[in-house]
């Protein structure tokens, strides 16, 4: 057996895909941005060759598709070169979105767990709630987001909470589904054992159902945190928000700032990846403490 190598097993496969994506991206940049250069040259009446077009497609002000190095430069400029309190700092906007994401994720997790506990312990709740939980996810979030903002504004709630609630709306669903399955995962023999001890329902919950549901909870949390971020961004789109990654995306599309859009997109992706990785670490740490076979 060869020794597992971090370079060979982790970096190489990911790196290869990354390289392939970059190559495809650069080719797409040339072909998507070339028509603009040809039009410009035609209007000026100067003939232009393909080899003259290629370098120009890499540095347009408002390209159809910005080149990777343009996006990297923009991200660098708006994160490192701007103070994070500035409205032009991407870190500032990311933080606005992140705070709504985390608040929404927190409320969604709590709500999801409470609903799952109710559904598992109460037949009436199982019958009446579960169809609504599923139906809630068939409504397009983009349609319901402005309603939530408007309704909450009417009762005097504005700012962070309405956006967070849209995150909650998306993130509670995987938690409910995962936790219902997790809390029902103990085998009959493990439940019988509790019965022979004359354990109270709360003892059965905390000593059996809850620990048994942990693997299910963390799997759900990973899905939930990623869609909580999507929820926060979507919450910023139709509501005229002036800050946050969603607002950056919207402003970028109003003014044709494609480089700004792409850098906001990459920031969102990096944020989502970081959040999922953090939940993943928590998952590993908890399961290790619970003695899971490595």
């Amino acid at each position, binding site marked *: 057996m060869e020794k597992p190598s971090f370079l060979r097993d982790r970096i190489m496969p990911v790196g290869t895909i990354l390289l392939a994506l970059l190559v495809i991206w650069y080719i797409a940049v040339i072909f998507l941005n070339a028509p603009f250069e040809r039009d410009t040259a035609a209007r000026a009446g100067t003939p232009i060759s393909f080899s003259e077009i290629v370098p120009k497609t890499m540095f347009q002000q408002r390209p159809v598709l910005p080149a990777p190095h343009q996006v990297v430069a923009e991200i660098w400029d708006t994160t490192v070169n701007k103070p994070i309190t500035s409205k032009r700092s991407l870190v500032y906007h990311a933080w606005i979105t992140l705070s709504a994401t985390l608040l929404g994720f927190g409320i969604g997790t709590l709500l999801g767990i409470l609903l799952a506990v109710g559904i598992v312990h109460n037949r009436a709740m199982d019958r009446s709630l579960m169809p609504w939980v599923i139906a809630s996810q068939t409504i397009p979030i983009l349609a319901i987001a402005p309603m939530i903002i408007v309704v909450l504004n009417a009762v005097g709630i504005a700012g962070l909470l309405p956006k967070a609630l849209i995150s909650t709306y998306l993130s509670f669903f995987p938690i409910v589904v995962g936790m219902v399955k997790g809390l029902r995962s103990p085998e009959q*023999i493990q439940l*019988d054992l509790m019965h022979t001890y004359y354990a109270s329902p709360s003892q059965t919950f905390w000593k059996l159902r809850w620990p048994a549901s942990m693997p299910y909870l963390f799997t759900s949390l990973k899905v939930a945190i990623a869609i909580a971020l999507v929820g926060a961004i979507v919450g910023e789109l139709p509501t005229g928000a002036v800050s946050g990654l969603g607002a950056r995306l919207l402003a970028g599309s109003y003014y044709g700032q494609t480089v700004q859009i792409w850098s906001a997109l990459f920031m969102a992706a990096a944020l989502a990846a970081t959040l999922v990785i953090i939940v993943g670490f928590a998952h590993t740490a908890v399961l290790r403490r619970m003695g899971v076979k490595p």
Partner: protein
Amino acid sequence: MTITPASVVSARSLGLTFETNDGPVNALTGVDLDVNKGDFVSFIGPSGCGKTTFLRVIADLEKPTSGTITVNGTTPEDARKNRSYGYVFQAAALYPWRTIEKNIALPLEIMGYSAADQKARIERTLDLVNLTGFSKKFPWQLSGGMQQRASIARALAFDADLLLMDEPFGALDEIVRDHLNEQLLKLWDRTNKTICFVTHSIPEAVYLSTKIVVMSPRPGRVTDVIESTLPKERPLDIRETPEFLEIASRVREGLRAGHSYDE
């Protein structure tokens, strides 16, 4: 000196019918049985004879549909609420997220024993089942036989005089099984418990028991109750003595009689 032995389990014309989609199934009919204090009673019979069901009725895991049964002089439900029995299942049913000592602590936590008392009881019961030194291991780190021993330790940890065992060694190989049978007899001797033991192995039933209850299926009923004449001290090679073989053949006959008009 003759003392009337106290009855731990007493069943009178006990019956249990399961309502299934294919109509009612008679799991138990007309069971009359007494288990006295200090007895080691084996229930033997082919699958479907109701031996496990009878054990589950004693444990209040199933409710009888006719007849009466008392456990420690009360209803099975009250006996369960008094925590008067320990139950060992066919599978070890250890909680995988708890170490061996934490698994044994589970009933103690639920029944509210003090931390110091828990520690002492864990140590004592681990010693009883020869698992000292494995307290910090997780269940998956132990072999099947060791896991089953841990589950016996868990049933012994609290003060219940009655031990109900449902084919505890059924999934283990012959060698491990012999060893555990020997240990179980020693343990029974040292702890003075009353044991009800479900099995489908004739040698196991004869080797362990003071009383063998032979059951037969469709409907589940008791066909013979055999009082063992073997001495309390039983080395493994007692299984080759004529006395042992005679009891074994009576058990086999009882099983065959129960089967005859069905097959």
